[in-house]
């Protein structure tokens, strides 16, 4: 699979919520090659501090030559990215990693996203042959964060359900609560979000014998499989490397209890 180091140009930056931004970048090589669930490594600023690139899921290929990133500001790197202005350039490496694998044709599936973990799911919904078969379950702290994203999934024809910690939108509680009723009908679950959410989703799917793919996070230096830094414990006792074995993995590959 092709990989590029590409100087993308910021085309647009939208603030979706207090700490949530959507970056639209012109990156023709990466846009043409990207598959849902893959990620890019982005340089956050013009100097040597912060030093390392940051991994971000490809949120969407919004045109043949552009990609979008959904960015939650949590530290110095994401803060610098959120200050980008149109016309500036952001160096990207990508598309990287293994993306989502196709479900059986036409069967109903669930996409489960928590917080910033919603990012890769829109691209996936976009590329799934029949979005109507998608139930998209989105969880977040507050409703504000979900407004734009819910609309985007709905536009694709997905059925969207939401859960918020503060009850300001949809179910007042966890997104996993929304998943349980679906497990009797869906043929596959795709989940991305905080580790405890993924663990809960994996456990629920396992009980219900529904195949489940999860997109994991780990601190990364290279994103290329070279530094061996991005380890998570695997179910077989060996270490998995998120950037190469994932970020999307079958839930049963992962050692959830460690």
């Amino acid at each position, binding site marked *: 699979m*092709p*990989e*590029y*180091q590409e100087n993308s140009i910021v085309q647009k930056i939208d603030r979706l919520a207090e700490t949530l931004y959507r970056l639209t970048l012109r990156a023709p090589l990466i846009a043409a090659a990207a598959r849902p669930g893959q990620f890019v490594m982005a*340089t956050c600023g013009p100097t*040597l*501090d*912060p*030093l*390392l*690139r940051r991994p971000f899921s490809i949120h969407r290929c919004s045109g043949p030559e552009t990609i979008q990133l959904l960015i939650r500001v949590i530290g110095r790197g994401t803060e610098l990215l959120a200050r980008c202005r149109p016309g500036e350039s952001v*160096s990207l*490496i990508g598309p990287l990693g293994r993306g989502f694998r196709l479900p059986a044709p036409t069967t109903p599936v669930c996409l489960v996203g928590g917080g910033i973990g919603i990012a890769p799911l829109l691209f996936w919904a976009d590329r799934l042959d029949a979005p109507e078969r998608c139930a998209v379950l989105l969880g977040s702290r507050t409703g504000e964060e979900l407004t734009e994203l819910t609309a985007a999934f709905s536009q694709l024809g997905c059925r969207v359900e939401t859960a918020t910690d503060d009850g300001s939108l949809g179910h007042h509680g966890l997104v996993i609560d929304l998943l349980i009723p679906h497990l009797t009908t869906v043929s596959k679950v795709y989940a991305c979000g905080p580790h405890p959410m993924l663990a809960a989703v994996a456990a629920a799917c396992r009980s219900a014998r529904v195949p489940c793919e999860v997109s994991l996070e*780990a*601190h*990364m*230096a*290279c994103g*290329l*499989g*070279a*530094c*061996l*830094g*991005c*380890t*998570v*414990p695997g179910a077989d006792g*060996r*270490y998995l490397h998120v950037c190469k074995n994932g970020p999307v993995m079958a839930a049963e590959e992962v050692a959830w209890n460690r």
Partner: protein
Amino acid sequence: MEPVTAAPDLSVSLGPLALANPVLTASGTFGYAAEFAQLVPLSRLGGVVVKGISLAPRSGNPPPRIVETPCGMLNAIGLENVGVERFISDKMPFLRTCGCRVLVNILGDSVEDYATLAAKLTGVAGIHGLEVNISCPNVKKGGVAFGTVPEMAAAVTRAVKAATDLPVIVKLSPNVTDIVAMAHAVATAGADALSLINTLIGMAIDARTRRPKLGNVIGGLSGPAIKPIALRMVWQVAAAVDIPVIGIGGIGTAEDAIEFLLAGATAVQVGTANFYNPAAAGEIVAGIEDYLRQQGESSVRAIIGSLRLEA
């Protein structure tokens, strides 16, 4: 000085090992080269040094293994590697095609391990030299790192030299009082060249959770942050030994690399920079060429050790 129009000669020799240019990639930062094949024109590099190889496969340290620090990073990979057998069977086929010199970084728990590794790698087609990582703990000596005791470093060097006819580069640890004493010991023991520096030992703590940020608590510091220390050590060592020195530590631009060449390094290795800018090594080759033109030098060998100290 007149600008030179003919392409400057970039070739250098590390003792018995000739390189098309002085830019290598550092062990542990370039995988087994295949990982970078789509991003880096490998044949334009002077060479690659592969991830450290041990006799048996190692699974490495528990996560987290990587922390960013100011202008640097800590890693505690724990020498995860596929082991020498799988390295030869699975990784060498690609490495033989990459069009540049291939150096294998080796590591062990005992002097015998190093010798056995060297013997196993000798005669394998496509391997042009060994780099001996002596920053590892000597399990027979209570875990003191080989690279912090001159006699232990010399013993490893002698054992590896006796086990192979490949060029042997010994890679020094910077975590010592007297780097020159280490260099002398290893040079006297027969090393064909030295490379320095390996990482400095560091640590990071998460204030909120009060836990170490690395699974292994301590790790190796690399990147631009350590460049001034590396450059000083290379300058001291290059002045003190008769064998070639490879400069390593925080090199990310041609200017960085040139600083090391001026200080006396015959070649350089690019490490952490491969992560934040995979194009770095290639840019450095081109940048050294530009610099030589600007300085009116027809060969890179003319600038090695040409630091001007007179007022």
